[in-house]
């Protein structure tokens, strides 16, 4: 029996601080601040001047294990997630071998059961081997807990295959996770067409390719009656399209990667490969449209799109270097530093887009602070700071543009699965 007391806990969205008493991972008392006696409690944490958020859920992370352990492992990814205020994440299927059948999903779940300190839910491949040619075995993966089918970063080129896969799964109650793209338009592109792409002589990925692709997959999902989750939306035009379809399409949801809310093509500077992302970083106007989209509920979720890369691979030139940046370790501090502190987003919206919405999509229980609920929350200190150094990062890869930066705010404590993790 271990008991934890959180004193003076101001829960995001509420106005009066409370004391929370947790026993064996369950909230057993919730009372006015200062009213719970500390004498018989094992661990006491004072959350005065801090904010309590439900544990965040990240719908888009690449954990790289099995197969790419040089980049990341389940243990390091989950430690990084917890460090960034995330207590649950959905893993992309682009491991090696890929997660395209029930046996692979079972192996992956087993690895997670051993190594992970957060909840990890696997996605399953849309096509065998992520090759875009044959349907993967959806129903058997569903039996192992898969809710979202996706080929990770790849958008299938074959629309007929996608159409039939959607028709086939329409009765299985699964969600298709797809990124809006027209692969033939973006195959050789490296960044957003812009002043930067012109100066650096890098070919541009037109925004219209994402927008045409987004509209196409929405129309296909409407036609087949399938639920669709649009992944890593990056342009203002895509937000417009989602807004237009949102009301008429009940199974439609979407996500944006955190870096697309705060960075632009200008961050690429003189070929900084840490800012090479898929889709590419776009314009300030896109940042604003995407933030507005999250705020008005057009975009349901903010994700990390955590993509670990080895130091060597990122040292190559911009064409050869892989895309992606890590994002788990810094997730909540970055949200606070760039969005909440400058009043671009409220804590309520953060809770909605980083916890309740992703959990609802996956059919998970919402996180509650009422007595009898499982304790799953983050104590965040807005007055603290996060110095992002090599030691700070729990992720095995360090390809984050924040390395060396100091972010406002700090994840102090995460309470998950009956344990209190202090940072």
């Amino acid at each position, binding site marked *: 029996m271990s008991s934890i007391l959180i004193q003076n806990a101001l829960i995001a969205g509420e106005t009066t601080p409370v004391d929370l008493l947790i026993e064996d991972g369950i909230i057993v008392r919730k009372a006015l601040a200062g009213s719970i006696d500390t004498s018989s409690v094992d661990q006491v944490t004072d959350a005065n001047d801090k904010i309590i958020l439900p544990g965040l859920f990240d719908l888009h992370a690449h954990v790289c294990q099995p197969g790419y352990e040089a980049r990341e492992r389940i243990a390091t990814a989950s430690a990084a997630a917890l460090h960034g205020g995330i207590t649950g994440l959905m893993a992309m299927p682009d491991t090696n071998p890929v997660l395209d059948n029930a046996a692979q999903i079972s192996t992956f779940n087993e690895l997670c059961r051993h190594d992970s300190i957060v909840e990890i839910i696997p996605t399953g491949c849309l096509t065998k081997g992520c090759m875009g040619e044959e349907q993967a075995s959806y129903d058997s993966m569903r039996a192992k807990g898969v809710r979202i089918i996706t080929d990770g970063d790849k958008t299938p080129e074959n629309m007929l295959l996608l159409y039939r896969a959607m028709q086939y799964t329409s009765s299985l109650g699964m969600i298709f996770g797809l990124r809006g793209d027209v692969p033939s338009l973006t195959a*050789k592109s490296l960044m957003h*067409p*812009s*002043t930067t*792409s*012109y*100066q*650096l*002589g*890098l*070919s541009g990925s037109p925004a219209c390719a994402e927008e045409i692709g987004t509209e196409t997959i929405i129309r296909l999902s409407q036609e087949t009656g399938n639920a669709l989750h649009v992944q890593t939306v990056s342009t203002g035009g895509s937000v417009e399209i989602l807004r237009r379809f949102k009301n008429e399409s009940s199974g439609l949801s979407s996500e944006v990667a955190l870096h697309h809310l705060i960075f632009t093509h200008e961050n690429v500077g*003189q*070929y900084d490969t840490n800012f090479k992302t898929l889709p590419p970083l776009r314009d300030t106007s896109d940042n604003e449209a995407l933030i507005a989209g999250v705020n008005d509920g057009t975009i349901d979720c903010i994700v990390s799109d955590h993509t670990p890369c080895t130091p*060597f691979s990122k*040292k*190559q*030139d*911009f*064409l*050869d*270097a892989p895309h992606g940046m890590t994002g788990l370790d810094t997730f909540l501090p970055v949200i606070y530093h760039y969005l909440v502190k400058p009043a671009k987003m409220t804590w309520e919206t953060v809770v909605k887009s980083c916890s309740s919405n992703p959990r609802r999509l996956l059919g998970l229980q919402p996180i509650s602070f009422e007595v009898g609920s499982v304790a799953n929350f983050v104590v965040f200190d807005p007055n603290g700071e996060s110095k992002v150094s090599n030691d700070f990062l729990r992720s095995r890869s360090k390809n984050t543009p924040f390395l060396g930066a100091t972010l406002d705010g700090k994840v102090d404590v995460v309470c998950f699965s009956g344990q209190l993790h202090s940072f």
Partner: protein
Amino acid sequence: MNPRKDLLNIASLTDEEIHTLLESAAPMKELFTKSVKKVPALKGKSVLTLFYEPSTRTRSSFEVAAERLSADVTNFTVSTSSVVKGESVHDTIDTLQAMKVDYIIVRHYHSGLPDVIARHTKASVINAGDGAHAHPTQALLDSFTIKEVYPDTRGKRVLIVGDILHSRVARSTSMLMKRLGMEVAYLGPGSLVPKTQYTGIPCFSDFNEAFAWKPDVIYLLRVQKERQDAPFFPSSREYHKIYGVTEERLERISGEGMYIMHPGPVNRGVEICDLAMDYERCLINTQVENGIACRMSVLYHLTPKTQH
């Protein structure tokens, strides 16, 4: 000029550096008229050319420039088949670092690759063209050539014609020309000219519009016929008809005394008709000569970190 290790692009040069590099190209050029064309400035230094893209002109131009400064020149032959992965570039950098060469002249089909080499070696790295990014020595020789005919370059108008999208020459030379007070405009097929909002350079839709702008120099870019994916224009014939210097256009060009420039090698009958190659104000051969002088100036002014 403060010690500078590398020349990777025009953007990183200060006005003073541009001035120095152009100024000292003139005495270098004078050397060519002497019976002994060599000076001992780089005696004992080693220059290595590392070309991942086939090139005869630029490579020889650098070789001649280095030899006239008495440096030892080595060609590092890169077999294109073994260079499919970025890893081998890194391995090559390590090899070069171990060879203790002082100057590396690099050409690569990837934009930004010379930056990577420069970061990982003590030798001075000179970008001899990378992807669609930069070709700084070409820009210097172009502006040097224009300065020879127009000592005061301010307000002079240069029309750059052709494939701007893939052209490192267009990017570097237009940037330097603008910094020297020239006005630059682009002309080319819509599929090969990036939007003005990205380039900051006005763009004409045809030669009539461009002629009305009264350019002083018509700068033609080489048409890359060897693009493998979807074509950017229907045929060389159509290109020549709309964007080439045809005999009719040559009449107008010569009537108004405009100069013609081209970075070479020329596709006769595509960018330019035969007659225009012999036009008295065609500066193409002067550019080649000035290229050696400007590259000597660059080699002379860079300071490798291998020396101290």
